[in-house]
């Protein structure tokens, strides 16, 4: 064999130099193709990549895409490609943080949890939409969208950085058939729109459990709620419990988004401590050291390690009378195949009237605010197309379409009062309750320090609820910890 690098192939001599030249040319071509990909598709249309919810993208991505074009008026020259993020919200946040910090141009449009949009705004990683969107779109968003939802997408300078795609509100979901068996009348007493006190609620659940115990073999709990040591505890299930007692993390509603280091820390106040005592009463009963009188045992100890899917499953499996969850759970449980019209939804109970609340803007029924906002990658190469996608999303047709297709609530709360929304089965049946919950929604206090504060809060509350520490002592320690965190910028 000759010591030559060339080989005979198809009548042509392929030398190393030729190979390198060919590989180089191929690389350059691929590079150009890579640069072009993302801005124009095969048919000459502009492609907008949209960092999106993985379940929705997989299950109804095509329907949502069609909705934007057919009912939102999105030009056919623009094609949305959904880039599903991971299901876990925290992991998605970390991934987008890496992508945007690294200056990546993809995805062009990003769906961000209302719980962490502010973090990206404060780090100047997303586009200021006040100078990006047309004035009429800005006017619509700022005047008609749910205020609490909007507040999660605004910077401290008052500019808009995100447009809510859908909000989410915590609600109480329960079995009407079981409470009726126990002698209660949810429809006649307007449970759907008239919130009750936690004390009455817990007594109803205890009685319902007792009245149905013999007939319902799988029924084991009165009330289940997510109380694991995780973000969902600090942002939501405990936040709404505490607020309904008239308490707050940082003095009240005005201080939710700062000023960091200058706002009071009020986690050691009586309403906050009482809300933990109430959770302990639900879990361990009135014999617990920290229990409140009049609040019977209605929940399993397991809730201390449960998040929303566990709670949802307990309801699906017929193990509980009531659950605290997000509206997605309605869409499963209220179908004709499951509980149908025997499934009830009501606003979350409260302990203190707003007029008697210790912290400003608290008291009364309170639903934690969830939901997701659309934000724009400042490195996008297709800003005009991105603008058009956002414009389409702000139309009533698209909002109602998303409610119909996937159960995502419209960020324009008034749409819930329309017949079109009520006609959407099964969630539309509960539109009035969702409207009440939306009006009483409470955002989590998101600043750049929230990830640390949230972790500290969930650890302290979960630890105290699981009887590792007395509620008052745990909250005093938490206050000290939050003071260190607030002073660390």
């Amino acid at each position: 064999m000759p010591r030559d690098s060339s080989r005979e192939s198809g009548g042509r001599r392929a030398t190393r130099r030729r190979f390198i030249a060919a590989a180089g040319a191929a690389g350059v071509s691929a590079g150009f193709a890579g640069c072009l990909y993302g801005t124009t598709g095969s048919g000459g249309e502009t492609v907008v990549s949209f960092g999106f919810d993985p379940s929705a993208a997989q299950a109804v991505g095509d329907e949502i895409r069609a909705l934007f074009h057919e009912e939102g008026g999105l030009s056919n020259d623009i094609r949305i490609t959904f880039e599903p993020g991971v299901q876990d919200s925290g992991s998605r946040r970390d991934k987008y943080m890496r992508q945007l910090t690294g200056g990546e141009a993809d995805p062009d449009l990003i769906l961000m949890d209302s719980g962490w949009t502010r973090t990206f705004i404060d780090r100047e990683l997303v586009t200021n939409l006040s100078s990006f969107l047309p004035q009429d779109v800005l006017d619509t968003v700022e005047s008609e969208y749910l205020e609490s939802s909007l507040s999660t997408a605004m910077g401290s300078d008052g500019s808009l950085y995100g447009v809510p795609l859908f909000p989410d509100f915590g609600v109480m979901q329960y079995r009407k058939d079981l409470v009726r068996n126990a002698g209660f009348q949810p429809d006649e007493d307007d449970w759907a729109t008239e919130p009750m006190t936690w004390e009455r609620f817990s007594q109803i659940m205890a009685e319902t459990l007792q009245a149905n115990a013999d007939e319902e073999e799988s029924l084991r709990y009165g009330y289940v709620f997510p109380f694991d040591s995780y973000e969902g505890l600090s942002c939501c299930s405990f936040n709404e419990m505490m607020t309904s007692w008239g308490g707050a993390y940082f003095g009240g509603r005005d201080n939710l988004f700062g000023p960091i280091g200058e706002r009071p820390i009020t986690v050691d106040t009586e309403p906050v401590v009482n809300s933990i005592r109430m959770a302990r009463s639900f879990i361990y009963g009135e014999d617990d050291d920290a229990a409140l009188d009049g609040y019977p045992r209605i929940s399993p100890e397991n809730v201390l390690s449960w998040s929303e899917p566990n709670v949802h499953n307990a309801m699906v499996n017929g193990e509980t009378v009531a659950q605290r969850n997000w509206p997605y759970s309605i869409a499963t449980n209220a179908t004709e195949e499951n509980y149908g019209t025997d499934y009830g939804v009501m606003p979350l109970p409260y302990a203190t009237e707003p007029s008697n609340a210790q912290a400003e803007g608290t008291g009364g029924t309170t639903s934690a605010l969830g939901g997701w906002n659309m934000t724009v990658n400042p490195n996008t190469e297709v800003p005009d197309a991105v603008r058009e996608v956002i414009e389409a999303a702000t139309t009533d047709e698209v909002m109602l379409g998303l409610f119909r297709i996937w159960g995502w609530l419209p960020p324009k709360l008034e749409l819930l009062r329309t017949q079109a929304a009520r006609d959407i089965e099964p969630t539309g049946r509960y539109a009035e309750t969702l409207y009440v919950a939306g009006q009483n929604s409470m955002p989590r206090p998101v600043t750049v320090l929230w990830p640390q504060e949230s972790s500290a809060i969930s650890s302290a509350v979960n630890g105290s609820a699981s009887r590792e520490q007395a509620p008052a002592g745990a909250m005093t320690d938490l206050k000290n910890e939050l003071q260190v965190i607030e002073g660390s910028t």
Partner: protein
Amino acid sequence: MGTETETRTQRDAGGGRSGAYTRSVRWLETLDESQFAYLLLAPVFLLLGLIAFWPLLSTFELSLHADRLTGATRVGEFVGLQNYVELFTGQKALVNPFFSLEQPLQSALVVTLVFTVVSVLFETVIGFGQALVLDQDFRGRRWVRVAIILPWAVPIVIQGMIFYLMFQPGVGFAVGPLSDLGIISSQPFNDLGSSLLLIIVADIWKTSAFMALLILAGLQSIDRSLYDVARVSGASRVQQFRYITLPLVIPTVAVAMLFRTIDAARVFGLIEASGAGCTTVPSLSCQVVTTFFTIGRYGTAAAIAFTTAGIISLLVAVNIARLARGGL
């Protein structure tokens, strides 16, 4: 060799090359064999140095800068060793662990050391036992070998899920009995003591086989004739183990322990996969990840990372020094 060198010099000198080239060649010819070998290896050393040390130096450089939580600039101004001082004096606000120690870094250090010492110790003892079993010739040895090695083949995420499903309240069968006996709490993944115990058990379950394989290699390298001589001399099995097996296998055990110590000291994946999570079991690696990705304090995260690297280097240095002395 001398003749070859002569020929090379003559060929180059007579080749009409430039003066610099000729001087270089002459200089090369003056090098002795080991110097010439180092010269040839220099590019590799340089590359290894870049790969191994450049990230470390880069991390150290980042650790000398302040955190910047707002604004477009990701890294703050140069602050010297301030991040280290604040970390060690507990002034830094980190994601605080679910732990009674007030200072997060010290808590993470304690958690990491407890995990490392306990798991490596048990893995060594169990691995040694398994290696001794595998070293015997008996019927069904192949199946025993598979059974011992199987846990090691399980991916870390699957291993985490197995333990999560076993110890998740309401799902796992193991919570009730062990909780009633007071071994773990009723919410094991929300409690540091229980979580740490479960993670150590999970690590021992998986990694003892790794130790067994390394130690087995050491056992099989022992000259069998030594045992024949011992038997002829009337030595008991215990005496054979004590005076032949143990001294000859100790260097292998020490190397295996070194590998496992390095690996255990950077534990992260198992904590996350098992359901305990970094909040409940805050190892040093956990603190690096949460400080960097969750709370975006890049300077502080770099300082913790560099400190972790320093601690692991110290452990390695101590182990290597012991190895050099020929003991455990």
